[in-house]
């Protein structure tokens, strides 16, 4: 019997495995999320070493035209269902690099993004709120 997509997701959400792809300062704000002050493991979220194991891809900060190719390869290796969360103003508009010749301006032109978290860089609270919204969305699924 085929398992429904929503059932699969609900099982999955017990333990969210995350792969981080960080170019810039977004990493600085994600470190406290991982560490004991905010401690994302309380919610079953854990960083994995390989994109093949990951359910969620965190992309933080601007991507250069060189790194976006690598980011896409990371994304393609992830097994479905997969979620991409983009952190920071840079991923939305280019941020302070809006007139740089070598950075990606809008991430969703290159990779399907499920959620943007604004901020320069975003606070850990904002990251948790985004994750909570995804949890909530999955739980409300039929």
């Amino acid at each position: 019997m085929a398992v429904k997509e929503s059932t699969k997701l609900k099982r999955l959400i017990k333990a969210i495995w995350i792969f981080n792809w960080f170019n810039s300062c977004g990493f600085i704000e994600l470190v406290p999320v991982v560490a004991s002050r905010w401690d994302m493991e309380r919610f079953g979220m854990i960083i994995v070493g390989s994109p093949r194991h990951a359910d969620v891809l965190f992309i933080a900060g601007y991507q250069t035209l060189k790194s976006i190719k690598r980011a896409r390869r990371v994304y393609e290796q992830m097994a479905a269902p997969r979620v991409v969360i983009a952190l920071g103003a840079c991923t939305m508009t280019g941020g302070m690099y809006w007139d740089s010749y070598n950075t990606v301006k809008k991430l969703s032109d290159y990779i399907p993004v499920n959620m943007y978290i604004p901020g320069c860089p975003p606070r850990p609270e904002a990251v948790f709120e985004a994750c909570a919204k995804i949890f909530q969305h999955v739980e409300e699924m039929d």
Partner: protein
Amino acid sequence: MGAKEDLEILDRITSEFNLECKVQRKGRIWLDTPTEGFVDFCKWLKEQGFTHLSAISAIDWPDEGTYQLAYHLWSYQDRILITLKVKIDRQNAVMDSVTEVWDGSAEAHEREIHELFGVKFEGNNNLTPLFLEDWEGLPPFRKDFDWREYVRGKYYDRQNERERVYYD
């Protein structure tokens, strides 16, 4: 062997080579060097203790039609920083590579200048781009490269309401 003074180094350079140089301040020497015999001069300096090539920088002088390359050399033994300044033609930007003198560190610096200014270093056999993959157009650090115009053409659409602001 004690550390040598600036003037002592300077005297040694001027007695061996006919160059214009000055002590800019204590521990800093500026040298205007010609392109001919540049690599040999570098080899000689390395033998004098300037074993560390800390950076190569390029300055673009479009009005003059030249690039100025500045090689910063450090001597651990004498604690002196020498800056070699070389001017090369901007249209036909070719320079002898110093990879045979300073090896890997020179390779990386020359690679970067090749990518960002378009200077060709003869003798450096790894000039593949460092950051700019699939780059088309002028080397971006040249002063006549209008990066804002380039960004508009490449990333923004005037008809798009959200992006029109970049054209105003």
